[in-house]
């Protein structure tokens, strides 16, 4: 799941923004626990969604904004299996933001309703900009793989919106981190180290006790840390990590035998894989594959 932990890959002549227009139903409303350096702005445009940041749940509906600060551990989840969700996510380069807002800050949502409305409008316009690009069959900002850049008007429009957003942020969102927030960051960094470790070793036969030993914790302490910051217990997190990697593999290699997919991704046997899959998707993997086709 390398794409979950993105490195800062914006380059000076690139647009430091990524825009996503989301539209999901039911259990597809799901993003596994991850983090990135980029700062993320989320707007719900229709339906609802559960955001989980640092182990705490926030249920959001139409018109709600959610800001994920740099390095915060977050995930998305459906609230009910019949839910529908549409929204816009805008990710902005941390280093770019630092250049304009200074180094040591974090962002909270605006307190005043008019500032809030301004921010919503800007995010909506980001969404429209992306949509237009996609309708033209091309979603990038005129940036080619070889590093050259095309003279594309949308590049200017995107930066225009970005600077308007920076204005709102500077006026009503920038806060100085407090001491307790810094302490919290320390324990979050530990958790990141551990989830990075799991990310590298999930294919192996891991246990809570073995991982705890690796990091010089007791099992009970590691278990508490997990529950507190990730929001689910160690075993569930590990099984979901394995499951998500299995699902990726099922998409890329539909011809591959499920037993092989399960064992290669760390499930001890096919039964454990099928049970986890059913718990999560509500059907067996083979039924899911048939539906996908």
């Amino acid at each position, binding site marked *: 799941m390398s794409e979950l932990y993105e490195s800062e890959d914006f380059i000076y002549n690139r647009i430091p923004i990524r825009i996503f227009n989301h539209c999901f139903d039911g259990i597809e409303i799901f993003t596994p626990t991850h983090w990135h350096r980029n700062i993320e702005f989320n707007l719900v445009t229709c339906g609802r969604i559960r955001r989980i940041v640092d182990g705490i749940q926030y249920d959001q509906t139409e018109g709600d904004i959610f800001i994920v600060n740099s390095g915060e551990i977050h995930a998305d989840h459906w609230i009910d299996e019949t839910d529908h969700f549409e929204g816009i996510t805008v990710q902005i380069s941390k280093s770019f933001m630092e250049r304009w807002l200074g180094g040591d800050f974090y962002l909270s949502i605006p307190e005043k309703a008019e500032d809030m409305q301004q921010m919503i409008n800007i995010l909506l316009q980001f969404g429209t900009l992306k949509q237009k690009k996609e309708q033209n069959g091309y979603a990038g900002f005129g940036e080619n793989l070889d590093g050259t850049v095309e003279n594309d008007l949308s590049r200017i429009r995107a930066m225009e919106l970005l600077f308007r957003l920076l204005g709102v942020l500077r006026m009503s969102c920038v806060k100085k981190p407090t001491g307790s927030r810094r302490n919290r960051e320390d324990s979050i960094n530990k958790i990141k180290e551990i989830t990075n470790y799991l990310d*590298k*070793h999930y*294919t*192996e*036969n891991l246990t809570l006790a073995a991982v705890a030993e690796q990091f010089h914790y007791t099992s009970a302490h590691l278990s508490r840390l997990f529950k507190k910051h990730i929001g689910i217990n160690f075993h569930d997190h590990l099984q979901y990590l394995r499951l998500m990697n299995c699902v990726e593999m099922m998409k890329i290699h539909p*011809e*591959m*035998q499920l*037993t*092989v997919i399960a*064992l*290669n991704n760390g499930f*001890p*046997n*096919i039964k454990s894989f099928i049970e986890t899959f059913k718990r999560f998707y509500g059907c067996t993997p083979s039924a899911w594959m048939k539906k996908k086709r």
Partner: protein
Amino acid sequence: MAYIELQYLSSTITKFTTVKAYLPTDGMSGKNFEPPYKTLYFLPGFSNDATTLMTYLGFRRECELKGIAVVVVDGDNSFYVDHSRRLSNYSAFIKETVDMTRKLLPLSTRREDTFIGGISMGGYGALLNGLRFRSYFSKIAALSPSADCYDLICGHEEMFDRELFENVFGSEEKYYENDTNLCKFYSEVPKEEIPELFIACGEQDDLVGKGVKDFREKLKELEIPFIDRMGQGNHEMAYWEDQMDPVFSFLSEIEPGTKTRLILENHN
């Protein structure tokens, strides 16, 4: 010193299989190694099996001298890749073998104690699966590996048949596009994740010689370090027997030639 034949039901190749193992416990030389043991998983070549290799070559002696357990599998003529349509997944089988033998035998579960090796087709299997399952293996020892299976099979039609290649790998394009192409695979994995490598191939070996030469050059170009052993020899047991001490010295991190004599002790 213990010899074990271990039969179990494999879910990756959908049949019972037998792995054979030497454990370096209570040796005849009086030297005693305590579990959990460092372990070499070893893959036989085309038309070979575990019994053949273990009776021709000095694994037992090396196990006892260097204190490394040796687990040898039967790989049929699979090239140790997955063949899902036949329910015969010999790549996943490697990982399963490690998990299964760790469950049943007193073997170390640490990466730094776990190695993979093989001869010819098995050498290819070790280079491929050692890298695929690199979180398991810290060292790979490949003896006369068929580093380029297309060249091996389709370049020696007097021995093999193109249909065999297509049956195992799909097509030439698919083989070179995927991680089955070792030169490509080794250039795509971050260098620090690549296990330590030992590659040996006799200078008179024209069965796999070209593939090994290309692979060596690729590794040098990528600046991936490896122990490079050549020497006089063909695709033959005598050459591989000569490599036994160097391989096990590499795995146990001692100077080759310093621990070669198994002198039996009087147990009275």
